[in-house]
């Protein structure tokens, strides 16, 4: 057993990162989106500090538009880990009833980008763990594991700290913060494989089941609750679908699928011909939209 497998190495690296943060920061938090990457990150946190519970809270930046199944798993996951769950909803977005049907890009801006900034400021968190991976998107490929943010939460891609070996520089001035990505070197396949091997609980929406759907603007959307405004002529149709990523349900496209087990999901993923973010409306704007969002403070 002298040579570790790739998953053992990724796991050990992530655990090292999680521990470095705890040893070097005053008030860390883990951003928890209830998705599969969050599930893996949370699982790694449990491992890093076992037998202690992870010594930081979970934070869900809620938009009120997540899938019902996600809300059902949220508290249970926190309880299982012995961690406190904090939920933040941007009060301004709540007051203005910002929603993805009427407000387009403003929905993401206010609920997610602004909501996240508010939550971090309110609790004075100095380090926030996020589940982003470098294989997801081009601008992520260049981001550091420890990604430094100004007091205004801005990311400056041209002024990143060099990151050598496994030496992470966690020093910062008052008011500045750091986003840390323990899953930086994981790929989508690694995530699924690890969930499979470690039997990590994930939201059932990742598995295929008959669900009410409508086809709209090239996306297959699930009618998750009564707030979904049906257009003229639209009638929900029951299809066997599942999701490759989970976000706000009106913005997340499903795929038609019969995959009801993890091996089947992985099988479909390996044989598929489109990338996982393809189901996300947010990435489809101008060429480098994610980079722009990140400079503004999006996770």
């Amino acid at each position, binding site marked *: 057993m002298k040579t570790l497998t790739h998953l053992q190495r990724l796991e050990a690296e992530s655990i090292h990162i999680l*521990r470095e943060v705890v040893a070097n920061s005053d008030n860390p938090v883990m951003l928890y989106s209830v998705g599969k990457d969050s599930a893996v990150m949370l699982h790694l946190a449990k491992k890093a500090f076992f037998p202690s519970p992870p010594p930081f809270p979970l934070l869900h930046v809620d938009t009120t538009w997540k899938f019902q199944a996600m809300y059902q798993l949220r508290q249970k996951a926190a309880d299982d880990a012995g961690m406190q769950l904090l939920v933040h909803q941007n009060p301004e977005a709540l007051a203005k009833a910002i929603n993805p049907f009427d407000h387009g890009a403003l929905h993401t801006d206010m609920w997610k980008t602004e909501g996240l900034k508010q939550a971090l400021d309110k609790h004075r968190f100095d380090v926030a763990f996020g589940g982003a991976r470098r294989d997801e998107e081009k601008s992520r490929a260049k981001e550091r594991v420890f990604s430094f943010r100004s007091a205004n939460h801005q990311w400056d891609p*041209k002024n990143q*700290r*060099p990151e050598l070996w496994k030496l992470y520089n966690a020093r910062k001035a008052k008011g500045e913060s750091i986003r840390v990505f323990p899953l930086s070197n994981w790929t989508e396949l690694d995530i699924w494989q690890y969930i499979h091997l470690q039997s990590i609980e994930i939201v059932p929406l990742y598995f295929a089941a008959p669900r009410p759907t409508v086809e709209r603007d090239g996306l297959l959307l699930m009618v998750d609750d009564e707030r979904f405004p049906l257009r003229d002529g639209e009638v929900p149709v029951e299809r066997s679908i599942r999701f490759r990523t989970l976000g706000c349900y009106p913005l997340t496209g499903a795929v038609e699928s019969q995959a009801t087990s993890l091996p089947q999901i992985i099988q479909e993923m390996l044989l598929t011909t489109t990338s996982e973010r393809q189901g996300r409306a947010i990435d489809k704007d101008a060429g480098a939209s994610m980079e722009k969002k990140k400079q503004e403070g999006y996770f």
Partner: protein
Amino acid sequence: MTDAPIYQTDALISQDIDAYLQAHQHKTMLRFITCGSVDDGKSTLIGRLLYDSKMIFEDQLAALEADSQKLGTQGQQIDFALLVDGLAAEREQGITIDVAYRFFATEKRKFIVADTPGHEQYTRNMVTGASTADLAIILIDARKGILTQTRRHSYLAHLIGIKKIVLAINKMDLVDYDAARFAEICAAYQDFASSIGIEAFTAIPISGLAGDNITHASARTPWYDGPTLLSHLEDVELDQTQAADKPFRMPVQWVNRPNLDFRGFSGQIASGSISQGDMVRIVPSGKTTKVARIVTMDGDLPMAVAGQSVTLTFDDEIDCSRGDVIAIADAPPMVADQFESTLVWMDEAALLPGRNYIMKIGTQSVEACVQSLKYQINVNNTEHLAVKTLALNDIGVVEIATTRPIVFEAYGDNRDLGGFILIDKMTHATIAAGMLHFSLRRAQNVHWQATDIDRQAHAAQKNQTPRVLWFTGLSGSGKSTIANALEKRLYQDGQHSFLLDGDNVRHGLNKDLGFTDAARVENIRRVGEVAKLMTDAGLIVLTAFISPFQAEREMVRNMLPEGEFIEIFVDTPLAVAEQRDVKGLYKKARAGELKNFTGIDSPYEAPSAPEIHIDTRTTSVEQAVDDIMAWLAKN
């Protein structure tokens, strides 16, 4: 335009996913770096590896095709380079500005590629990317042969300790797959490689554009019987495997203490292996104990190896905390405080020898300063140059000292315990990366000579508390005037004092120093040492130096026992000092006759929390002396 992807056995995936997963689960991981400029076809090669391994999906390919029409340099063909040139700013300028990481997998391995750009910032980026790599691919354009940049890339890869070098001789299609050309380049590289200490390399003739010898052995190079690039990457031995054979070391990251019954020490094993019952030594304390358990959430392990993150518990209640290294008892690592080291400078602000920076090495953080800069290395021809400082992207060999002893191993033996970064104390930026080579004997052999009449005896004889009253402020702010008046008062009171004046010291002790930032740092360091000796002799020392940098004032503060350094900020705004211009220096500086004049073309960092603050616009010299005497009486 390309062969069908061959890495992922689609048949196995569709017919027996469980068998596929079983195989995938046992893959190993190789991290490598590609070195070369855009002209060498580096991005094209990486793009092809991603494409052939099906890491590019249809939607990305569609975007790529659209981009290729708009921005590409390959006419109507797909420009693979666009796949890996990430950020919008870079795409507009046609350059890559940073390190990007790419992922692909074959049936045997997962690969992480560090992709670094090939222009001015190269040294910093390449060293960063190479620091985590097992292997480096040096790309050469077969038409051009070995260039200055080939030598630079090879030198840097060797410097950072990469032992597996692949010489990918690219664009073979453009030299008609000529065996003689390939042999000629190999021979030339062999001569160069030996001269810088590279013991072995693997040369492969390829074409990134045409796909020769990347994944398939090419029919167009029948004279070549070595591995394809990919099969070499799949089979090469991993550094991690070698690390497992070395003596056990684990830097402690975190002490795990959920309740009174459990005390575990968490870390990632840097080298060797550990089993339950092994005797270990905690370094630097030197205490030994026995490993009771190797704790993980998946259950206790009988043994663990290099690369694993674990938590150890011991048989005894032994002192151990973050920064300590747990080592096998009979072969512990060394402890020292002075080293010879290679330093790669990574910041816009140049190295200041004598200034204290924060050194992070393993899980230890200490203050460290460069005591002497032996030489700079020209990365293009490995010549040694005599220099006073290191600027961005410079590499030098230095003597570096830490404020307390640290646990270390030579970088060549252990990257985790020999590689370090330096962090600026004010900006918090990572400003340098370094590699420790060996400890300097001086630190071990020059011991402090204990004397019978110690500093307490000297102070008691004079019946006073020794202190350093450190006056700082702009030129002409009134430091010397106030210090002088204060010393007269102390003398009248029967106190034993001495005034060190900036101008006077520069006539003797510091005659050799100028006014550059580096010289100012050294000036203050020497004055600090002299002041410290005088306090050892029991004196009250007054110093009147501009001492413009917070870092050096802090350095002197840290040299002295707690409470003996009294920072007195003589606060005179620049306009006021310039108006007084007692010595006529501001006029000269404004006229450009004096360079590096504080306040004019050299910065002054005001103290953030001085013990005593004197605003000279509202305070007379007499009043200032009264205030300081009152403060001293109280503290």
